[in-house]
């Protein structure tokens, strides 16, 4: 059964991966902005660069794109892993 379900699993995994990698709300609410804490993810880093300190928004936008492209690479890999094997 599992090979038949691969396309569905692919969609679920990719959607879940996308939302999990881009989590930021929860970290902003519950104690972020401390580099020693495990809540300091790349999204929080982007936020801090863009809206705190020197407000380096161009740099932060670049961080956002690098993160998004990195995620895209993983998504492409997932499309390969979950390709239909008929």
């Amino acid at each position, binding site marked *: 059964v599992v090979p038949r379900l691969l396309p569905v699993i692919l969609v679920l995994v*990719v959607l879940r991966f996308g939302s999990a990698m881009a989590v930021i709300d929860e970290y902003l609410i519950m104690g972020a902005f401390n580099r020693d804490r495990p809540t300091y993810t790349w999204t929080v880093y982007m936020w801090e660069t863009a809206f705190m300190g020197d407000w380096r*928004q161009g740099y932060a*936008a670049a961080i*956002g794109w690098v*993160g998004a492209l990195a995620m*895209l690479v993983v998504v492409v890999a997932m499309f390969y892993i979950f390709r239909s094997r008929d």
Partner: protein
Amino acid sequence: MAVDARLQSTASPGGTISKEALAQAYRPKRKFPFWQVVKHLILILFCFVILFPLAWVLLLSVKTIPDANMPNIWPATFEWGHYSYAWNKIPTLRQNYANSILVTLSTVILTSACAVLAGYALVFLRAPGKAIVTSLLVASLFFPTRVTAFIGIWQVQREFGLINKSWGLIFPYTALGIAISVFVMRGVFQTVPKDLPDSAKIDGAGSFRTLVSILLPLVRNGIVVVIIINFVIAWGEYLLASRLMNEQANWTMPVVLASASGGQGAWAMPRLAAVYIMAIAPGLIFFAIAQRWYMKGLQEGALKA
């Protein structure tokens, strides 16, 4: 009677009843339906996982403050004063509530209207670049648009002078919800047979008339699905609301909720819980009203690709 029904359902298309079906129908039923029990236990477990935190917060909001630090879940005495305390103690709460309702309602209406029109055009009208638009929408679902576009949204809002205007949130929220909404509406419109709009056309209806009088009644449940999706997105959005609104009077409810714990000094847990219940109550009520059509819409295939 039950055996007859089972025979009916397993009968082959020709009307004859195969030997296997007979054997299956008359097989003695097991006394203890083990897998049924396991299935129900799993379902109950997941319901519990969802409902327990909600019930806990609800009960916490009616505890007395010293009682809130006790490990018991059921309150020793019921104390309803936290609601009025929170309502009176946060001076802008009324305004925040109004902001949330205004932003959410406008977002829902705007997005649903756009999604219905776009879904209709993508399925039934001869629009140029249909395939490109559809694939872009699907691609944006797989992409962390919200985070990547965030700084861009902030700068655009600043250029338009929409920072600190709570109605300015309507536009980014609409943009956030539109991809999934159009995708859902497209799926719903695809379940409608193509002959229906064609025959309406033969009878002389324009494309707008076809949409309003023929298709809208058919896709009603799908529209409810879109409305609920957008309600959830707009009512619970924190990131944009907290960054684009600087003054407390312009906040929406999630921001109030998040800042009540940190910003205004430490609040006692029951009071926080009261604010929380007030923040989620409209969503619960709304979904309780709309869930009948929502389930129908899901069954009709609103979320199929």
